[in-house]
């Protein structure tokens, strides 16, 4: 039974952590955006803007006029950017940021959200973009918005496969599953890293899934080659074409926070390891070390899934995006899923060793 005092304590913790995580997300999102721009500029042989450029961009946008076009439906048009940012910030609460447990949970048993919730919340920023684009009442924005929606449908298929596969590996009571309680919660996923539980076949499956997730990320973030919704060269910024001033700044911030969110999800699903147990550290030094390690992991993932891909590939057409995700990538993800499912049977019936046992890590 929950006591009143406990309820108040939980509510206070949640309020406090929302504030902290909102600021964390916005600051590091913009910072990573700057780093990403610098790195991709270097890859193209340019010097690139300074790392603090995104902060300046936001500052500049706040001083610009906030135009509401005459064809727009004002209340939807203004509300969409806010909802996008709010939805993105709320995801951070459910993720294990910096190697800690998800902040929206009470120590021990009570957890308030899980991976499916995160999957759905991830749609909110995209949905806000789509509705904002539709609400602009401009043909360009409408085209961009419907492309964003089609992209969303497209990448959600492989993303769902990845998330369900990992949860299945942990939670299934059939052959190969670990039978972990609450397999969809991120606490359980970080406590039982999937790599430790698979054999050679499952290892291949996980690699495939990781690969697909890395390719899903740029679409989730509307980056080249999957930025057909924005496509500056054909439809002039697409769904953002009528946005300006502070509304555009909100979308800019949403994008920044979402980058951190996506990278954190990849970290939580595939790389939940911490350095501190290895070095035998405890309490505050351990927290600091883990946090820094977490930031580095995020940076590496952003470099691989955003900077590298967007520099090296050209933009795809919208029907190509849908096809890419629904046919080749879904097939790869399904192969990964089948590998992981067979892996369990192999380990059970033929006694195949786990991959960690092969490398002698346990």
């Amino acid at each position, binding site marked *: 039974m929950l006591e009143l005092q406990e309820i108040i304590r939980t509510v206070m913790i949640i309020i406090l952590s929302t504030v902290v995580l909102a600021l964390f997300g916005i600051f590091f999102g913009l910072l990573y955006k700057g780093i990403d721009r610098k790195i991709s500029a270097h890859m193209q042989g340019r010097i690139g803007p300074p790392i603090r450029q995104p902060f300046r961009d936001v500052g500049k946008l706040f001083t610009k006029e906030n135009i509401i076009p005459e*064809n727009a*439906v004002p*209340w*939807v048009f203004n509300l969409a950017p806010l909802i996008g940012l709010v939805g993105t910030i709320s995801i951070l609460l459910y993720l294990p940021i910096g190697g800690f447990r998800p902040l929206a949970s009470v120590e021990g048993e009570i957890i308030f959200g*899980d991976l*499916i*919730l995160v*999957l*759905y*919340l991830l*749609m*909110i920023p995209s*949905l806000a973009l*789509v*509705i904002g684009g*539709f*609400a602009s*009442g401009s043909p360009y924005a*409408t085209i961009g*918005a*419907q492309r964003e*929606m*089609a992209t*969303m*449908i497209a990448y*959600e*298929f492989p993303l*769902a*496969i990845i998330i*369900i*596969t990992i*949860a*299945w590996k942990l*939670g*299934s*009571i*059939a052959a190969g599953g670990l039978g972990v309680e609450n397999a*969809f919660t991120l606490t359980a996923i970080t406590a039982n890293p999937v790599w430790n539980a698979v054999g050679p076949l499952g290892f291949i499956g996980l690699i495939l899934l990781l690969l697909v997730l890395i390719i899903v990320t740029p679409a989730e973030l509307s980056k080249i080659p999957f930025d057909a919704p924005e496509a500056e060269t054909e439809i002039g910024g697409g769904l953002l074409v009528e946005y300006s001033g502070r509304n555009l700044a909100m979308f800019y911030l949403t994008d920044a926070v979402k980058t951190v969110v996506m990278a954190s999800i990849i970290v939580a699903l595939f790389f939940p390891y911490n350095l501190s147990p290895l070095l035998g550290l405890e309490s505050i030094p351990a927290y600091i070390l883990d946090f820094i390690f977490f930031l580095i992991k995020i940076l590496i993932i952003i470099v691989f899934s955003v900077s590298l891909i967007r520099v090296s590939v050209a933009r795809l057409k919208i029907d190509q995006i849908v096809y890419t995700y629904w046919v080749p990538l879904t097939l790869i993800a399904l192969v990964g*899923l089948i590998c992981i*499912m067979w892996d369990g049977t192999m380990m059970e019936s033929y006694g195949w060793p786990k991959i960690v046992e092969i490398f002698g890590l346990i």
Partner: protein
Amino acid sequence: MNIIDDIILHSPALIVAIPLLGAFLTPLISKINDKVRNVFVISIVLFTSAIVLLLANDIYSACGKIHTYVFGGTAAITEGGFAVRILFEVDGLNIFMAIITTILAISGVIYSWAFMKENTGLDKYYTLYLLMIAGMFGMILTGDMFNFFVFLEITSIASCALIAFWTSKGKAVDAGFKYIVISAIGALFILFAIAILYGQYNALNMAVLASNIQFSFLDKIALVILISGLAMKAGIVPMHMWLPDAYGRAPASVTLILVGVTQASLYGALRMIFTVYGGKLTTTINQIGDVNIDLNLLLGIFIVGLALVTIFIGVLMALKENNFKRMIAFAAVAEIGYIILAIGAALTTVFSATDPRTGIMALKGGIFHILNDALDIGLLFLVAGAIYYATKETSLNRLGGLARNMKYTTIFFLIGLLAVSGMPPMNGFASKLMIYESTYQVNPILSIIAILCSILLLAVFVKVFHSAFLGPKLPKFDNVKEVPKSMLLAMGIIACIIIFIGLFPDLVVNNIVQPAVNALTNNSNYINNVIGGI
């Protein structure tokens, strides 16, 4: 013994009798005045609802309580062991469905006031409307196979006449004809199956049948026909094609109740599978070569296969459709798919002795989704009706910019959009979460397809949001005004319930869904309540 106890004692009969009586009084009352008629109809429905709530309170007061009402006697089985008396047996599942019907009926009648105001022949409209509600209550509450068939036909006839109510439109009449052909054949096949069961066990009573059933070859044929017939009435792919026609052409207030009718058919299928056949499903084994397969597994896999096809084809067709109401109808098909997905997944695991938890959770999700589906789809149909009322347009291609003129309708549509596509914090999310997080134990592919199609549903309704509500202000809709208050009230009632369920899902699951699931999984309770009373 006070009057409340008396009412509760006779409530199953009253719930059907009052709307039935009201239906045939309506033409008389309409002679007086339109206002009086409206007040009369809503008071009939409200009175029925009050009795439903009293009965619900009674059922939920004790765990596993079943209210049996025998017509013309006290014992269900006469001396000499003939189970010929008609009886109504109300357990957790029945009352759950009755509550859904109540909500739909109240908001449907309130909505009709303004929505149907300009039509003639409203006395007949309300007569048929009440008849339909009475038929639905009968289908839901009855404990007798033949009675089920009779109420099914009453509902079909009333709803068919209502679908074709706008006889000035050729397509409406066409849809009505299709509906009556479908339901007549479905009902006749169901009667055939009932006759097969009667021929073997000399009983029409569900509980008596359930206690005697042997699962002979004839029983299997009866099961096949029963499930197929009810599945057609529930609109499961590939037997769903009547549904967009009927839903799309009927007046919106009628469509709302039609949603309930499909749910009632689904309830019938659940009752047949889990209660009538439930006791013998696991002990019957089919042989393929040397491999033995439990019948529940086979049945579950078949239903899951149908469900996946239903979900997928439902959303894909909805994505392409440009007629607002037909589009919602296809979405309704997909939503029904979620329910039977959960039921199929539950069938495969719920009877297992080692770990029934997954199956029970899936069943909970499925039953919970029946409620959510009725509310979400119902709300969207009401919104579609409101748009039709205001603009006289049904094609999305000719709409646009209505968010400026119809603010409240837009908000209700947004609530419906979020709920039907299962976005948090609406009710659809809670039940879909339960479905995803239990069906993945059966096979991960099930939850993957379910999640994907839920997002496709989101895309479907975002398209509606764009083409009907957003966009530039169209000159031809300059004079469009917000719909009358009674229509807003009807939408508001459903929207409030949606948000309430969305915010307190655990409360609803524990207090309303759990008894329904217990009633399904524990059919010996249902049987003993009748057989034990000899």
